């Protein structure tokens, strides 16, 4: 798999395409894109069979190692690729370390090992063990092992350590990669650590750019510890680091970021030149019973940025989540029905909400690409910004009714599945 820039005249925002994929000569995937965030190889609540009812376009699944660790031994006996094993033969796969939708526990560092937090508890991965699993999974893309355990509040000592670890871990992985026959055509994403310290970022970049010929893309790592909080990270805080990192990576390489970034921040990051995100944001929305209803067209209008279907006002509402939406959940099911399913805790409720949210979020990325093409990205940003900000103000100023606020707070709490 290779990455090509389609708009070389500008560094950002830009259009690109992933193509020349092994065994899939006709597949091209356009950037900016969202990887489909998965757990156990599936979009949370949505089977591959059901996802086909949402979209038939080729997709890249983001496969966090933490949710696949239980298959480590199994995969050494399995002949096929990870896409085949998880039942989505036609999808591409991107192996990452942590699950962006869950808060990653901090600390517990041991020399040359990275802790991941599986259902069974802490597991320490060193580069050898990690590359063994990469070779047995045979993903189409993967991130080198890194220490991304920094955030806005990290002390300088932790940041320096994270950079030191990331350089060492990535290099060891890359050494294995160079020798690996199976991974010859696999797309390599190199993590850049360093928290919010530009000097630390610079050090990490310098060290890892030495191997840039082997690298296809970069990951701006170490900005957060994943989970629902990322939705509320102020863009102004992350802007400097992202700008600096992008300025220093070769322009022909893919630039990716992980986490539950809200659509407004996605737009701002795209404008800095980020090419690849993921759909973990859809999961945290779905877990709090919220459906995205922001509009992407000026003339469309929208009642709200998102709606929480748990609210009793939807019990008698037999309209769809969003009247202008073409997704299966909107075409065939009503807010009232989904409200009923939520009230009685039925498994189909998050299935339907996730179908809509994923559909909406993928449509949003399609719109982003269109707007880059037409040079109308800032109009889109204004439109989304107005809707997002009035929604946030409503929540922060307490102008929402008690039920809405409670629903919001409660569901923030029980996000960990």
């Amino acid at each position: 798999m290779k990455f090509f820039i389609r708009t070389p005249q500008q560094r950002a925002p830009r259009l690109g395409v992933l193509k020349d994929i092994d065994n899939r000569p006709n597949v091209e995937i356009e950037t900016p894109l969202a990887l489909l965030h998965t757990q156990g190889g599936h979009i949370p609540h949505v089977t591959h069979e059901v996802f086909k009812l949402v979209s038939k376009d080729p997709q890249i699944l983001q496969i966090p190692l933490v949710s696949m660790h239980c298959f480590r031994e199994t995969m050494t006996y399995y002949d096929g690729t990870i896409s085949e094993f998880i039942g989505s033969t036609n999808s591409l796969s991107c192996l990452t370390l942590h699950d962006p939708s869950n808060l990653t526990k901090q600390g517990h560092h041991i020399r040359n090992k990275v802790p991941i937090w599986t259902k069974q508890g802490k597991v320490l991965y060193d580069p050898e063990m990690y590359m063994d699993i990469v070779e047995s999974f045979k993903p189409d893309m993967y991130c080198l092992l890194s220490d991304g355990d920094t955030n806005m509040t990290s002390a300088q000592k932790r940041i320096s350590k994270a950079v030191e670890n990331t350089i060492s871990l990535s290099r060891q992985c890359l050494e294995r990669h160079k020798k690996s026959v199976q991974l010859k055509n696999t797309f390599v994403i190199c993590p850049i650590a360093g928290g919010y310290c530009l000097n630390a970022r610079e050090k990490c970049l310098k060290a890892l750019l030495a191997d840039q010929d082997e690298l296809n893309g970069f990951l701006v790592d170490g900005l957060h510890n994943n989970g629902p909080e990322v939705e509320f990270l102020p863009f102004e805080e992350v802007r400097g680091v992202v700008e600096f990192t992008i300025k220093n990576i070769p322009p022909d390489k893919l630039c990716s970021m992980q986490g539950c970034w809200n659509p407004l921040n996605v737009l701002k990051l795209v404008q800095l030149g980020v090419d690849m995100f993921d759909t973990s944001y859809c999961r945290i929305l779905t877990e709090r019973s919220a459906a995205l209803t922001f509009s992407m067209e000026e003339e469309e209008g929208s009642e709200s940025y998102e709606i929480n279907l748990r609210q009793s006002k939807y019990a008698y509402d037999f309209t769809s989540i969003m009247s202008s939406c073409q997704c299966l959940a909107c075409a065939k099911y009503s807010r009232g029905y989904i409200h009923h399913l939520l009230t009685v805790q039925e498994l189909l409720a998050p299935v339907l909400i996730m179908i809509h949210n994923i559909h909406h979020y993928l449509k949003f990325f399609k719109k982003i690409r269109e707007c880059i093409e037409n040079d109308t990205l800032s109009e889109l940003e204004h439109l989304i910004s107005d809707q997002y900000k009035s929604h946030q103000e409503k929540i922060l100023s307490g102008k929402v009714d008690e039920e809405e606020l409670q629903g919001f707070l409660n569901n923030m709490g029980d996000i960990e599945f």
Partner: protein
Amino acid sequence: MLVNRNPLLFDITSECKTTKARVGKMVLPHGVVDTPVFMPVGTQGTLKSMLPEQLDNMGLQIMLANTYHLGTNPGPEILKRAGGLHKFMNWDKPLLTDSGGFQMVSLLKLAEITEEGVKFQSLNEHKGEVMLTPEHSVEIQNAIGADIIMQLDDVITTTSPDYDRIKESVHRTTRWLDRCIEAHANPETQNVFSIVQGTLYEDLRRRSAADLVKRDVNGYAIGGLSGGESKDDFWKIVHLCTDLLPKGKPRYLMGVGFAIDLVVCSALGVDMFDCVFPTRTARFGCALTMTGQISLRKPEYAKDFAPIDKDCSCHTCRTYTRAFLHGIVSDLPVACTLLTEHNLAFQMRLMRGIRDSVREERFPEFVRKFMLDLHPDRDYPSWIRESLSAVNIDLL
């Protein structure tokens, strides 16, 4: 919706020459159902974790919903305004609802049964006493709008030895049937089925059936079984009831859904079954196969790259290995969907096997092979030998 003069047409298309098994087509307002049929249970207006689109693709023809649950949530008012359960849940094929009486007696220990109806402590916020009468049950079922609705019956624990109480329940069930028929608002689009009671007493079953047959309904259920009685008692009562009920109308055995029971009771002349077992057991990680059920939680499946059942053509078996399912089964909601889909496909395949073999006049061979696959050592339980021998099948 199909508009017939009669909301249920039942046409027996093949009969087994050896046993009492028969194959039929039941035409209901929302579609055709091939019998014998297994009806999965979508208690709260959803078949757990499955989209109706998936069920339709699998060829499911009818499902069941529970009146007690739907009457509580979302309640008849919302269902009425939504235009009935079919529209509310996006399922345009036939539906059947129970009366709600069984749940009251089984879920609510405080239920008290009087001639008026079932009195119980409400589970909703008001905690008041609520009375479910035959009229009220039908009213809710009318709001739900299922193709087949069940009369409210006086349910007694199957293993109760109290003859007089059981006798009372038989008579009361008949009286309640009359009230249900009287209260029924949609006789052109919904069918009331009556329910034979009498637990394990043959004379009471005869009396119950005789009384019910005098009333004009389009189908009959055999109630009060599958409640902890011995299998020896169970099959004899089924055998008796199918003899007592009119041949030309569908017979529905309530609460039965284990594969072996479906095969035996189809041989005894039952046309319809329902049970939560296949879908419930799926959520606990159990997959059904022709040689019994397997628990995918077991470590032995961690390196098993075969599908659940190599002869099954469901989406789960075409797509996933046991090893993969083992890894997600107690972990992820999608595992429920995948195993539910397989278990439904299993039930449907079994029923298709029964229908096809009756049609092709090889049902006895089908039964013998089914039993031998399940008991390769021929250690058949005695009730299996006896029940099948009663309909002229001797096992291999």
